[in-house]
């Protein structure tokens, strides 16, 4: 049977694995954003922390992904369930783009605008929420976009440690020496990444246009 027939015959499994994959990538990116964006804001306020924080995130990114999975395997609680482990590892990988883009986005806001805001009596919190974050939002969303695409890609490797997702098709297909099975994993994964990149890219452009309205 051709590839399309194969996909239709096994559509239940394709759907299952795709949803698993989305959950792995989605939860981990969300976690990374919940930690990374506030950290990025923090290091714009406390500049002496910027080097260690960015440096730390950079080191984590440098560790090969499979090695990171391996490091976390013996950890208590985390290592007991592949799902938890994968989500933690993927979230760690997504940290750097989020921290870095939040930092760069806020630093890149026109200093004259920030000073004008401060001179008018905006509190630090008001400045952050009403001026800096909105103007930095385009670049921050660019960081989310990069983090999401990276997570979708890395989640395929997560199948190697038993976390499921579309990577499972790829590994099984390799063991079976069956191209259709491999493609049943590879193609949806690629499509997911492209779709996420496209949608977030649109959001990024819309938000980026706010900066340039001056």
């Amino acid at each position, binding site marked *: 049977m051709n590839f399309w027939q194969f996909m239709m015959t096994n559509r*239940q*499994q394709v759907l*299952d694995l795709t*949803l*698993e994959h989305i*959950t*792995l990538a*989605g*939860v981990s990116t*969300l976690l990374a954003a919940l930690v990374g964006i506030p950290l990025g804001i923090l290091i714009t306020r406390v500049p002496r922390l910027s080097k260690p924080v960015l440096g730390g995130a950079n080191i984590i990114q440098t560790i090969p992904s499979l090695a990171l999975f391996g490091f976390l395997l013996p950890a208590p609680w985390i290592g007991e*369930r*592949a*799902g938890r482990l994968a989500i933690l590892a993927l979230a760690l990988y997504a940290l750097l783009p989020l921290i870095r883009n939040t930092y760069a986005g806020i630093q890149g806001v026109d200093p004259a605008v920030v000073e004008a805001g401060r001179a008018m009596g905006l509190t630090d919190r008001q400045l952050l929420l009403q001026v800096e974050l*909105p103007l930095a*939002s385009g670049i921050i969303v660019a960081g989310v976009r990069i983090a999401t695409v990276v997570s979708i890609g890395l989640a395929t490797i997560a*199948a*190697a*440690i*038993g*976390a*499921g997702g579309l990577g*499972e098709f790829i*590994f*099984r*297909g390799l*063991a*079976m020496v069956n191209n259709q099975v491999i493609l049943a994993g590879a193609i949806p994964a690629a499509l997911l990444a492209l779709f996420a990149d496209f949608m977030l890219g649109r959001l990024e452009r*819309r*938000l980026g*246009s*706010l900066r340039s309205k001056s």
Partner: protein
Amino acid sequence: MTIDSIRARVAQIICALLVYLLLFPSVGCERHADRIVVGSKNFTEQLILGELFAQVIEARTHLPVERRFYLAGTFICQQAILAGRIDIYPEYTGTALTAVLKQQPSGDKAEVYRRVKQGYEKQFGLIAGPPLGFDDSFAMVIRGEDARRLHLRTLSQAAAFTPQWRAGFGYEFMERPDGYKGLVASYGLRFAEAPRIMDLGLITRALREHQVDIIAGNNTDGLIPALDFFVLEDDHHYFPPYEAVAVMRGEMLKQHPQVGAALDALAGAISDEDMRRLNYAVDGEHRDAAVVVKEFLRQRGLIR
């Protein structure tokens, strides 16, 4: 496009994400309540067993079955069943005891099975089904002609001849604590020369062509009957048992008790000989596993 409308849109997206995440806490767990997912590892015997489970469940319960075979190993399968992504997969009692429960192995079949059954239920909520009837442990294999000529049946009997024999073993067998060293100690084997360490793929041919006289293989290897090899009985019970059982999710059995009943029909239904023949049909004769399994089940009257 005002900043307010963007804020509203972003808030909508975040809400949708949170709703999704709250409704689907464990990946895939609730989604296939109507199907049974059977997994297996990635070698022939496992595929055959997975197919056996799947077909028996299909025939006897009429529940739809999804197959997720060729999973890369014990760890992957264990993670998958714990996360609810698969409902059943074939495991070996020895592997379950040492690799999953991380306990010390023993040679007593009944004891190993009991510990596995208890441990799995208590720690993981997984149910180990009854043994299928065969043992896929290490086997010491010699040529059939030698077995007949020397009237050999057990390893203890064969021990006397070891000074005249050359042995061929795989690297892993030499290194494993429950491998070569323990075997020699248990049976007092005395090989004249050190065993040849060989690639597993070449070891069978080496035995057939008289390059070696005794090898360590798997008990259910399909080539054993095909090449007229003989498995020496492990009368000291040195090798831990690796009885095949179905490992099943407790939650699934509660929802579909008929699955447990269906698989009980396979208890003791497959002997060592049976498994060797099935393995050979797929590996040696290159027949399709699903077809081979269906034939077997019909022959034994396990399905119609």
